C-alpha cells in the first residue's frame, strides 16, 4: 500500500496532466493557443484595437480587404497558422505588409491569427 504522502503526490501529478490535457483539448477544439491565458485582458483589448484600426487601414476595418487582401475566415481557411504568424511577425517582402515584430510577440501574433481564423475580431457594422 502506498503511503498517504506518495498518493497525494501522484494525485497532484495526475491533476497536472489532466489540466495539461484539458488545455491541449482546448487548443484542439477552439484553435486557441495555450498562451492566451498569459495575454492580459488589457493587452487583448490593445491587440483588438490594433487589428481593427491599424491592420484595418490596409485590410479594411471589417477585414474584407483593401490595398491588402481580405483576412476573413474564408479567405484564411487554406492558410496555415504558422505561415500567417510568420507573415505578421516578419512581413512580406516586396509588398507593403510590414514586419510587426517590434510591436508584437510570437504569442500575440498567434492570438491574432486565432481570432482571425475564428472571425471573432471584428464588430459588426451598425
Amino acid at each position, binding site marked *: 500500500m502506498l503511503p498517504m504522502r506518495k498518493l497525494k503526490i501522484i494525485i497532484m501529478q495526475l491533476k497536472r496532466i489532466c489540466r495539461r490535457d484539458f488545455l491541449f483539448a482546448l487548443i484542439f477544439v477552439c484553435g486557441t493557443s495555450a498562451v492566451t491565458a498569459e495575454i492580459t485582458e488589457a493587452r487583448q483589448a490593445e491587440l483588438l484595437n490594433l487589428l481593427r484600426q491599424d491592420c484595418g487601414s490596409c485590410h479594411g476595418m471589417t477585414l474584407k480587404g483593401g*490595398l491588402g487582401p481580405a483576412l476573413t475566415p474564408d479567405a484564411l481557411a487554406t492558410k496555415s497558422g504558422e505561415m500567417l504568424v510568420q507573415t505578421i511577425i516578419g512581413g512580406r517582402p*516586396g509588398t*507593403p505588409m510590414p514586419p510587426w515584430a517590434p510591436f508584437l510577440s510570437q504569442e500575440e501574433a498567434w492570438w491574432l491569427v486565432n481570432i482571425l481564423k475564428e472571425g471573432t475580431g471584428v464588430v459588426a457594422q*451598425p
Partner: protein
Amino acid sequence: MELRGTGDLAVVIERATGSVQILDTSSRTSIGQVKGLGDLSHASIVYSRDARYAYVFGRDGGLTKIDILEQKIVKRVIQSGNSIGGAISQDGRLLAVSNYTPGGVKVFNSSTLELIADIPAVGNNGLRSKVVGLVDAPGQQFVFSLYDAGEIWIVDFSDGKPEIRKFTDIGLLPYDGLISGNGRFYIAGLFGEDGLALLDLWNIQDGVKRILSDYGKGQRKMPVYKMPHLEGWAITDNYAFLPAVGRNTVLVVDRNTWKEVKQIPVHGQPIFVMSRPDGRQVWVNYAFPNNDTVEVIDTLTLEKMKTLKPGKAVLHMEFTPRGEHVWISARDNNWIKVFDTDTFEVLTTLPAKKPSGIFMSSRAHQTGL
C-alpha cells in the same frame, strides 16, 4: 429650418460607427450626426459645387449623398465591393469612384447617383488592377493610377462620353496620387521603387516622367506601418513638401526643377504633409507608432518650429479656408482638437467616435479635393 449658408460647415468621419458629424467651424460646435453609412474604415468626402451635399465614399463600396443642412441621407448606393475614394468633376455633374474590387472606376450622375460609365481597370498585363489616386482635373477629366499594373489613366468626359488615355510602365505599385491645386501636375507615389511618377497635364505629349528617382538609394528602408497620403501635399511658392515613404523624413523639392532641396528629419514616418493655405507653415502627422505627434515646419527656414501632442492616433488635419485654425482628429482619444495656427493654442476639444478625415465645405471649390 433657419436660413444659413454652408461655407463654414465641415463633416468628420466617425470610422468605427459608420457615421459622420456635421461641424460648424465658426461656433466650433457639432451641429448634428448622420448614421448608416457602412464601413468607413477608409472614407473620404467630396462636396457638390453648391456645397450643400457631401458625397461619402466608404470602404464597403457605399456611395452616400448627404444633405448637410437637413442632416440626412438623400441617396445611398452600394456601387462596388470595395472602394477607396472619389472625385467630382469640374462642372460638378459627375462623380467618379475608384474601386479595389472589382478594380476600376465608376462614374455617376451627381444629382441622382445613376451610373453613367463603368471603366474596368484592365492594365497592359491583361489583369484587372486596383485603382488609387483618383482626382478631378480641369476639362471634365479624371486622372487615376492602376496599383497592380503600374499605369496612369486620364478619362476625359468633355464630349459627354468617356475617352481614355493610358500611360503604361509608369513605375511599380503606385499607391496614391495627387494633383497640384492649379490642376497642372498629377503625381503618383510609387511603393515598389524609388521616385515618383509625374504627368504634366499641360504637356501630356511628354508623357510620364520620373522625378526624384535617386531618392532613397543606398539606404535601408524602414517598414511602412501606414501608407502616406499624397492628397494635400504641401505645394508652396517655391517648394513642394512630400512625405518620404518608409523614412522619418519630409522631402523639400524645388517645384520648378523637381530636384530635392532638403531632407527635414522628423518625428516619424509622415502620413499627411499639409500646407497652411497661405503656405507659411507645413503641418505633418505620422504613422503608427509615432501617431501621437504633429510637427510644424517653417517654410522660410525649412526647419521645424513646433511640436504638438494632439492625442493618440492623429489621423487627419484640416485647415479652415484661410488658415487661422486647424482641426485635428485623434482617433484613440475620440476627440477633435481645434488649434490656432499662430499661437498653437487649443481653442476647442469636441467629442467624436474614432474620428478620421475632416472635410471642410470649402473643398467644393478646389480642384483635386
